[in-house]
């Protein structure tokens, strides 16, 4: 499959770089520690939050910059001259991003198990679906018509960091006021955090099947938008 060749190229070119991998693990860990220190939160609550954040950051770390970077490095035209469509490139980018997201998720999973927590297998399905959904979001960021990776990074940070705070990572959604609950429904991260909590035996905010449905709906929305916008952005990248 042609998109697998694209994914392989992405992994070799952009993901298998020391700093990328290390940053993928360290960023969520530091954010997490910053909120953990001095607060008395239960371990399972924290590990679920860490897992959600790790998958979220990993799947949206590199995926937004691949397209502008390829425009700038002038490899995009070489790719587009091959018998493939824009969506092949997008699917390839998404597959690479999912792979990275899942790979990095192993770290908090093992950490949780080392602390004696046990996950139900639902978490695995959740991780795959969440990595897919967040990767689609990453590709939506990268559809901004620019060849400047820094511009796209800025846009994606402007969205990603606020999402962390409205997704029940640090404060359980159940304890938010009703307007807070409503806002949290806008973040796809909310649903994966909820799945992670449920998989550790905690009570979830929504029924788990609804969490899955919401992730699927967000993925579809992001994906369709990303393909449309990337097709439009192509010309300004050449």
């Amino acid at each position: 499959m042609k998109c697998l060749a694209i994914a392989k190229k992405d992994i070799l070119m952009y993901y298998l770089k020391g700093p990328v991998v290390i940053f993928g693990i360290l960023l969520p860990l530091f954010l997490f520690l910053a909120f953990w220190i001095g607060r008395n939160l239960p371990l399972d609550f924290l590990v679920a939050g860490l897992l959600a954040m790790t998958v979220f950051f990993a799947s949206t770390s590199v995926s937004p910059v691949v397209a502008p970077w390829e425009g700038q490095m002038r490899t995009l035209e070489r790719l587009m001259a091959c018998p493939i469509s824009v969506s092949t490139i997008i699917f390839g980018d998404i597959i690479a991003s999912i792979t990275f997201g899942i790979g990095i998720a192993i770290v908090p999973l093992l950490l949780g198990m080392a602390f004696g927590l046990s996950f139900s297998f639902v978490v695995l399905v959740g991780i795959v679906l969440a990595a897919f959904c967040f990767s689609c979001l990453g590709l939506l960021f990268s559809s901004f018509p620019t060849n400047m990776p820094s511009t796209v990074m800025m846009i994606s940070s402007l969205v990603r960091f606020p999402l962390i705070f409205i997704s029940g990572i640090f404060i359980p959604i159940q304890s938010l006021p009703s307007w807070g609950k409503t806002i949290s429904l806008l973040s796809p991260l909310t649903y994966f955090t909820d799945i992670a909590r449920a998989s550790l035996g905690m009570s979830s905010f929504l029924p788990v099947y609804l969490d899955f449905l919401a992730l699927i709906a967000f993925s579809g929305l992001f994906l369709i938008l990303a393909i449309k916008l990337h097709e439009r952005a192509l010309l300004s990248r050449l």
Partner: protein
Amino acid sequence: MNVIEAENLVKSFGKIKALDGISFKVKKGQVFGFLGPNGAGKTTTVRILTGIIKPDSGKARINGFDVVNETIKAKQSIGVLPEISNAYLDLTAWQNLMLIASLYGMQKDEAEKRAEELLREFGIYERRNTRVRGFSKGMKQRLMLCMALISDPEIVFLDEPTSGLDVQSARMIRGKVLSIAKEKTVFLTSHNMDEVNLLCDEVAIISKGRLVTVDTPERLKSRVGGSIAIEVSFGGKSELRVDEMNVVKYGDKYVIYTTNPYQTICRIVDFAKQNNVEIISINTRTPTLEDAFLKLLEVEK
């Protein structure tokens, strides 16, 4: 049989009309040259024909497949060397070739066989496992050519394949183009007249998004209106005015095309005497494709 057909292609970028109704046909097996000054619309034409961008209006077909509606099929039978593009610097030459081969849907063993052949032919086989980052410009361009040829395409698009290369590398690439031309149709854009003269069976001259003419290099040269070109330059400012003569001015030089050089030179000398200007240099040569090119662009203005 026509393997490339363009019908009335129009493309604008904002207010700039890059292509203003371009039509031509390229026959199977031909080397078709696309010659034009900077910004004439050569790259835009190549991008439309190779399915990278869509025309605003007009049609183009590759092997009978419409480049807009049947893009993938049209692209399948072509190989492309884009004007400014790069291989992946952090991948090896081999990995780059395998990537492109997969994107053409080639089988692994077929791709490997073809890659080895090409790398050997282009003299970079020994370096196949080093990252492209360390390649010289000439080596990179050779690799880009290998990437354009990996799928053994019927039609090859080369957008200024030798620009920016030193004489030796450019010469090697031209040699390769000649050997590619033996079995494939080649669409070549260039600024370089000698290159076009050497390689092409037919040349289209394009200026400001319009085709000025399509003809063979030899006929283009004969169209300048004389068998001999006389180049003359004068000291001081003076306007060469000689009746019934075919004069073109380039910078501080005049070029006169004539079939009767003796008579023409006499008249130039008379002109110099009458107007009391000095002749700095005068020499004769056969008209080149460049003369044809500049003359045709002059007429176009």
